């Protein structure tokens, strides 16, 4: 039985140039508005227990679809049915009132979710416990740090197991330990066979997590099917002129190195493991070509060796994380990747909780062009990203021959060929 059933559901935003245009339209019967079609009529059925990923460019209509499912937007046409309790992690804490205490906001949000006072009473301790801010529940939430705010909001939003979970972009909220906790909670919903509908720019996450993916393009479903197939098609599209630069700003290739962690990865690598504060973080990442370490490196096809050295620290209580390295083109399209999980290499950590690994690409077979190196520190299942070092280095590949394309594959000639 379908948990989510959309029949001809579409959404059109109407815009009036002038306040009185709405009135003029009523009086004269002439159209005085501009229409913006966010979502063309579409049919979609999701069965119980399915995990569906939505991919698409910014402005393609992904968020509109999610809001329709969460019932915060009314469809302009069609029939939309969502069965069971829906929990939407769209804008966490949007309904919180800054002047009210954390405690009152829990009850307010609970009431909005349709829980009775007694039900919230019963859940209250577990909500506070999960958010981990028991000491601040009497304070008005306006005094909360943004981290505390989002922790409480997430904790309330997920305090009751929903039948349908709608997630926008992030599979985890907050940072450090809480990011992991929130991610685990979403995974529990998945394991409990709940329906999850989530949109993400991380194609990797969509592929790792979803059975099925829907690619939305310009308000229409462009493809709907097994996640691996849809993601591959979408990834291919990102490389074409229509999709180029959609993920990464056009000038991102200019040696820009970004580490999403607050303090930059230390160049000398002398960082003390943070005891217990964060479950895992990168300590040092280095990209080396033939003995030269740097942020902008020159390579020659089939000659140079590329090595990526990663040092990270992780909490001894959690399983050892996995790492992945991705090479992307300047347009953001994924060229190739390698991950310790996929290669079935169990990483080890020393008594300080530190792991150091080197990933080598001997005689790199990339053809001429500019590429970026991205490094990801992931959980043991390879889905939750503790930390990412996006475009940590740029490599410029030059080649000797005239071979065309992005990569030179191993090949052989046979037949009437001089040996």
């Amino acid at each position, binding site marked *: 039985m379908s948990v989510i059933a959309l029949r001809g559901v579409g959404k059109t*935003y*109407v815009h009036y140039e002038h*306040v009185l245009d*709405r009135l003029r339209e009523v009086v004269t019967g002439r159209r005085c508005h501009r229409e913006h079609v966010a979502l063309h009529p579409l049919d979609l059925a999701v069965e119980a227990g399915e995990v569906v990923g939505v991919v698409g460019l910014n402005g393609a209509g992904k968020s509109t679809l999610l809001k329709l499912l*969460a*019932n*915060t*937007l*009314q469809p302009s046409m069609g029939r939309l049915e969502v069965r069971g309790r*829906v929990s*939407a992690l*769209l*804008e966490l804490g*949007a*309904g919180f*009132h800054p*002047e*009210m205490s954390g405690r*009152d906001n829990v*009850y*307010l949000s609970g*009431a*909005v979710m349709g829980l*009775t*006072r007694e039900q919230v009473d019963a859940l209250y301790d577990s909500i506070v416990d999960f958010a981990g801010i028991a000491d601040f529940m009497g304070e*008005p939430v306006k005094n909360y740090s943004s981290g505390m705010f989002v922790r409480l909001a997430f904790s309330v939003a997920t305090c009751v197991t929903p039948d349908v979970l709608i997630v926008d972009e992030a599979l985890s909220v907050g940072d450090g330990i809480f990011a992991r906790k929130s991610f685990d909670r979403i995974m529990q919903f998945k394991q409990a066979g709940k329906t999850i509908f989530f949109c993400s720019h991380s194609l990797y996450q969509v592929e790792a997590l979803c059975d099925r993916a829907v690619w939305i393009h310009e308000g229409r479903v462009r493809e709907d099917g097994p996640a691996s197939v849809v993601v591959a098609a979408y990834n291919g599209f990102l490389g074409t002129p229509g999709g180029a630069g959609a993920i990464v700003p056009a000038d991102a290739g200019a040696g820009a190195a970004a580490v999403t962690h607050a303090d930059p990865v230390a160049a000398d690598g002398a960082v003390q493991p943070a005891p217990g504060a964060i479950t895992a973080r990168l300590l040092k990442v280095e990209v080396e070509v033939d003995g030269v370490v740097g942020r902008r490196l020159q390579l020659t096809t089939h000659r140079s060796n590329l090595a990526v050295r990663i040092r990270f620290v992780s909490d001894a209580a959690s399983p050892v994380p996995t790492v992945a390295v991705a090479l992307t083109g300047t347009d953001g399209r994924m060229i190739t990747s390698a991950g310790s999980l996929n290669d079935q290499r169990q990483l080890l950590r020393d008594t300080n909780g530190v792991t150091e690994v080197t990933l080598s690409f001997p005689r790199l077979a990339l053809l001429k062009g500019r590429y970026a190196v991205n490094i990801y520190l992931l959980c043991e299942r390879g889905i939750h990203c503790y930390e990412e070092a996006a475009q940590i280095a740029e490599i410029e590949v030059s080649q000797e021959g005239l071979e065309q394309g992005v990569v030179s594959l191993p090949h052989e000639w046979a037949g009437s060929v001089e040996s």
Partner: protein
Amino acid sequence: MPVAKILRLPLRLAVHACSGLVEPLRALARHRSLFLLLLRRDLADRTSGTVLGFSWLLVQPALQMLAFWFLLELVLQVRFPGRIGFLDYFLVGMLPWLLISEAVMRSTAVLNDLSSLYSRMAFPIVLLPLLPLVMAGAIFGMVYIVLVGLLAGPLAALYAPLIIAALLLWLLPLAYLLSVVGLFVRDFRQFLPFVLTMFMYLTPFLYMPQMLPEAMQPFMVLNPLADILAVVHHLILGLPVTAGNWIRPWLLWLVLLGPAWVIFYRAQPHMREAL
């Protein structure tokens, strides 16, 4: 065909009037704990950061009345002919007026002010127009009971809660209508203070209806608030009242109830986009 449509109109009006009365009350019953929290949230909003806190809600109308007493009794020394003291007459009418104007004023703004509640979440919006009503009733109701008890004795004080309850019921369709108008036609809120001031001058609580010029008297039937205050003055001070004073406001109420609900109901899906 149009004839049949016109004939069916009273029936439709009656059906919608029933929903207009029953649906808000049903929502209130279903979401009572949410509604109580919203009231608390509203209180917190109005009084946060003040020393007196919630007491301000009572002190404020009390101070307002003190100011009028100072002006009218001490400075201007206004006197009415006959046995009714001016101040009694004024205060008995003033508080219901304050309740009405407060409820009207806040109704037009409520869907904007509390948009954060529903703009990004699924939320029973039908509760929101009830909020200013209940709030105004709570604030002015308490002051009114005390005041009437002091002015007209404990027996008359029994009428005060009934009057407040009837006023709130009467304001119900108005609250739903004005909340929609206030959201979709922003200009209305700029215009409203003028309308309220005019009503304040045209509604006899600063003067007795008989004090109006002869030529103006017939127009008083057009002002439902004049009828309402005539009833209030009758119940508490024993002043004369006509059947028209009783009937006209409730007739208007009956006519408004259905359309107000239908308009609110139809406007609901568009509210988030109107923000």
